[in-house]
């Protein structure tokens, strides 16, 4: 079967499944380590939550959410390890790359929602500020900081590392970079330490701990309880600032968008494709990222009636393959039903007349003249215009007796760009010159059949 079943239902009991998973997890050393750290994390989070309620401090609660976030990412990575370890064999693996993206998105959004909750609570606290006990505040801060840094630095969480590197910088990172740049102006020796991009998680942990210590100091010295709320707001905003770029990045992957950093390259490739021999236009181009980093896409290429489909397909695939790993190219021709085209690549005798009879049920009636008049407007081939709703199942719409001389200059990508064409035609000719391939372009036949149609033949 060709379909994919990522969530195939198993009829085992939940606990049985759980124990099996557990055994699987413990068998691997890496996942065993992750599991130990998760346990530590759960323990630490429990302690922190207890201390939060005993100190009645909002800022510590906000800081605890960072620990919970760590727990999330840890748990998700455990799930990956055990899933990829044994399910991957039978199931298509790109879905699991996608699951990684979903996990990153979910955990960043969850922690942002937690920060939103913190902000709401803080607004309520500004109205009436309760007393904050500082007894466990500093202890909690340092325990949380220690555990967070330990888990961050000892367990490599691959998807999170990728996202934190690929996403745009958060405002916290920008400010730290700006500050450290001006610091490096004073002490140039620090440039190797400070100038590279900071890890956002480490940064937010340290910044949060710093604001908590300031809170502790101010409450101890002056009994300013409002500082607690203020630093809770600050930590909440920092969480937003750090997580927002990551959730935007992973959300864009989930929305099946073309990643903006490859658009330039893609445009260049598509331009090259549209200058290939026989290609009339490229449209319905959709490109998206499946997991982190792997691009997939589908493209419809309209070609001339006398062009060889398989060769164009091979060349288009060859061009795009460098960038898009999972590619589907649909080649289509206008007016392919006409007999003049049959002389193209195959001997005409292979098609029996009964075939045409069978085909006629699938082909809509020939176009009305009114459609011919507004053909220009009805064909959307600009990249910015919305993709047409499956326009090629009605090929008759685009049929026109004098199509080719008209559409040749209308290539969306090919205008005034000659650099792609000249090396390619030579390559094509080389390819054509190879003997024994069984490809012949029936140019003579095509020309003879409709010479007025192919007035501007590039060959």
């Amino acid at each position, binding site marked *: *079967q*060709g*379909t994919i079943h990522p969530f195939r239902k198993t009829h085992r009991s939940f606990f049985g499944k759980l124990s099996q998973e557990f055994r699987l997890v413990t068998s691997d050393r890496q996942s065993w380590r992750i599991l130990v750290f998760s346990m530590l994390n759960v323990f630490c989070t429990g302690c922190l939550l207890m201390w939060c309620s005993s100190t009645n401090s909002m800022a510590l609660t906000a800081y605890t959410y960072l620990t919970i976030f760590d727990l999330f990412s840890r748990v998700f990575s455990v799930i990956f390890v055990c899933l990829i370890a044994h399910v991957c064999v039978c199931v298509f693996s790109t*879905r699991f790359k*996608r699951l990684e993206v*979903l996990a990153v998105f*979910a955990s960043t959004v*969850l922690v942002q*929602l937690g920060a*939103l909750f913190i902000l*709401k609570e803080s*607004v*309520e606290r500004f*109205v009436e500020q309760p007393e904050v006990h500082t007894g466990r505040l500093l202890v909690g801060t340092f325990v949380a900081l220690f555990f967070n840094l330990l888990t961050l630095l000892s367990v490599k969480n691959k998807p999170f590392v990728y996202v934190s590197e690929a996403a745009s910088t958060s405002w916290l990172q*920008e*400010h730290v*970079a*700006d*500050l450290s740049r001006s610091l490096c102006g004073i002490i140039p020796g620090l440039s190797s330490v400070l100038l*590279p991009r900071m890890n956002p998680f480490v940064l937010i942990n340290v910044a949060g701990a710093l604001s908590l210590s300031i809170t502790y100091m101010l409450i101890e010295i002056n009994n300013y309880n*409002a500082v607690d709320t*203020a630093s809770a707001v600050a930590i909440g905003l920092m969480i937003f600032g750090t997580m927002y770029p990551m959730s935007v990045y992973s959300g864009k992957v*989930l*929305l*099946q*968008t*073309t990643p*903006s950093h490859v658009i330039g390259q893609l445009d260049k490739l598509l331009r090259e494709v549209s200058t290939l021999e026989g290609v009339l236009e490229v449209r*319905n*181009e*959709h490109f*998206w990222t499946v997991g982190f980093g792997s691009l997939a896409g*589908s493209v419809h290429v309209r070609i001339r009636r006398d062009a060889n489909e*398989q*060769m164009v*397909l*091979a060349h288009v695939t*060859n061009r795009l393959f460098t960038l898009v790993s999972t*590619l*589907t*190219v*649909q*080649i*289509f*021709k206008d007016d*392919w039903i006409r007999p003049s085209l049959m002389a193209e690549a195959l001997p005409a005798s*292979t098609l029996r007349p009964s075939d045409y009879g069978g085909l006629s049920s*699938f*082909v809509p009636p020939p176009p009305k003249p009114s459609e011919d008049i507004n053909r220009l407007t009805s064909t959307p081939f600009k990249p910015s215009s*919305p*993709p047409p*709703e*499956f326009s*090629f*199942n009605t*090929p008759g719409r685009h049929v026109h007796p004098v199509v080719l001389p008209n559409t040749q200059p209308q290539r969306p990508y090919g205008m005034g760009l000659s650099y792609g064409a000249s090396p390619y035609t030579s390559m094509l000719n080389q*390819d054509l010159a*190879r003997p024994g*391939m*069984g490809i012949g372009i029936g140019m003579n036949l095509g020309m003879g059949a409709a010479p007025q149609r192919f007035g501007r033949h590039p060959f």
Partner: protein
Amino acid sequence: MDDKYSSNVLSSGQLGMVEVPNARLTRYIVLLLVSKVLKALGIFESYDLLKVVHIVQFIFILKLGCAVILVFFQKPFSSGKAISKRQWIKLLKHSVISCIISLLGFFGLTLCGPLRTLLLFEHSDVVVIALLSVLFTSSGGGPSKTRGAALFIIAVICLLLFDNDDLMAKMAEHPEGHHDSALTHALYTAIAFLGVADHKGGVVLLVVSLCLKIGFHTASRKLSVEIGGAKRLYALDNLVSCIVLLPWVIVLSATTESKVESWSALILPFGMIIFSVMILEFYVESICIAKMEAPRCARYGSIFLFLSGLLLANFWTHPLTEQLRTMSKTPQQESTETEHVLSGGVLVSAIFFIMADSILSSPSKKGQKGTLVGYSPEGTPLYNFMGDALQHTSQSLPRFIKDSLKQILEEYDSRQIFYFLCLNLAFTFVELFYGVWTNSLGLISDGFHMLFDCSALVLGLFAALMTRWKATRIYSYGYGRVEILSGFINGLFLMVIAFFVFVESVTRLVDPPNINTDMLTPVSVGGLLVNLVGICAFSHAHSHGAAKSNCSSHDHGHSHGHGHSEHGHSHGGHGHGGNGHGQSSHGHSHGSSHGHSHGGGMNANMRGVFLHVLADTLGSVGVIISTILIRQFGWLIADPICSLFISTLIFLSVIPLLTDAAEVLLLRTPPEHEKDLNIALEKIEKVEGVLSYRDPHFWRHSASVIAGTIHLQLMSDVVEQRIIQQVTAILKDAGVNNLSVQVEKEAYFQHMSGLTTGFHDVLAMTQQMESMNYLKDGTCIM
């Protein structure tokens, strides 16, 4: 992070602004220092004087003295061109406004004390304009400016919150008799109406008047050009404003008896204030701006001013200065001698203000942001600076609101959400206002909770709007998926809410608090009513939407029923089933999620919003039930148990939504089409000429789009386009309406192996070919 890599063009050494070395400017800096110290002294002196002299009289004397000196020095009437009547009128307006601003400023001085006034009011135009541009425009000028603005705001907040100046609080309790004029009385009542302490009101007043001052300075630039120079304008302005103030002063001195015993003793301090605050500062500032750049002048000036203010605040109450001042003192002030002392908050905020001013007034390091045009032959990037000014055509706000409202009201879903959002917001604000009115904390907190909930509605509304945006280059399938993502986020939101309710109720289970039930019932009944309206609207919307989609699938089944009759019928039956479920969800809350899950990611956004409203309703029902239980039986534990129950209910009802949305987001084959697709794939294999297929991917992109890609291997003697037609038709029957078919023959693999030079690719290709040969086993001659 090097400059080379950012879009920062002008910051490299050769291109940047050339700074004059400090050594050449030492004279001016020293001059600035002296003038600022004197100004700080003058402000402190005037604070003391203002206790004796009425504020209007004080300003009048200042303006008068200033005008006399300036008229003598500047000779505004004898020199320069004559002033027309229209310019006089403008001058009159100008001076009235300047009077108002200085009134506000000095009133703030009486409220806050001299140091705080210096910190808040004496910022130069450059600093405030930089601050405002960071706050209100998108191009603030890099992270450093943002930091400066944040420091400024933090400093103001420090003054507001952490400056618990006991002495000021004592001063705030002063008897009403202190207000000896209508004006000050009006201002006092205004501040008292705001409900803040006096000094906090003073801080707010000073910030407002600072903004006014900057706006006034900027606006008066044109007038100063018209009149002929800033100095002439200043002189004339002082003259006119003391004429404006004259009648008021006469009335005042006629009606109230003065507290001043001897005006002659005040001549010296007044002269000092006039000299230092009004004249010397003005001249020195204008000289320094001419000789140094304005930003540097502002930086040094503010640092000197704040530092001298801090020093003076430390020593002003010192016995030494007290002795010095006794000659200008009347004995009645001795009681309130030590007010407005230094506190920690003031110190911190002074440090922050100094830092903020030095950051904000530093010339913007970040060069103009240009758009990259291309690369020069040498390889250096070329930028275009023109676009930035042209791009920012800001839409007018009312027009924007009108447009978006029109868009919202166009479609059923967004209209429904919008109306409910309005209702919810109205209820929230009524609750909040009533809570503030009656000073009930429970109501206020419930109001904030409702606001928190409204954010989910706003998210849903925004997603419903975005769904209709046109497809762009980046969003090549259109924005339909946003709806599903928003449904997913709403589901997560509900999970978070359920989690918090759960934690809260567990802690309450251990220690059930005493709840005051008086206020709860009306609020929860009101919330219940609002949410019931929402449930009616959304469940109708939902079943409508589901019915619509099901109807479409039904029609679809019929339209293809000619060819495959049993298939069409099954489709119709499926649609009916879904419809029935949707109807059943109407009344009962729990069954709804099941009914919706049949849709399979169909309009996840509306489902999320609906579940949210449902959760709120459950919450109000729970509150009502627990209130009744507590009132009737005194079971305090009923409340946490209720909330436990509710949180698990929310959690359980969210899970189907989350899994559905996650499946769509993971590009899973839509489960409701899975059977059809399998049948269709079998059919495709049976199509004449098709050898095999590979990589069939089908996924639901959005509610209306099911996309798919498939690769087919054909025999080499078949017409590709015909196969594409057939396959497309077959898959369209199965529900796929955005399809790409790649048709491969053996020639394709030969071409590919010829084109790709990589060894591995060739290997993969040959394997493909072998499998093909194996599959067709003899049907093809090749």
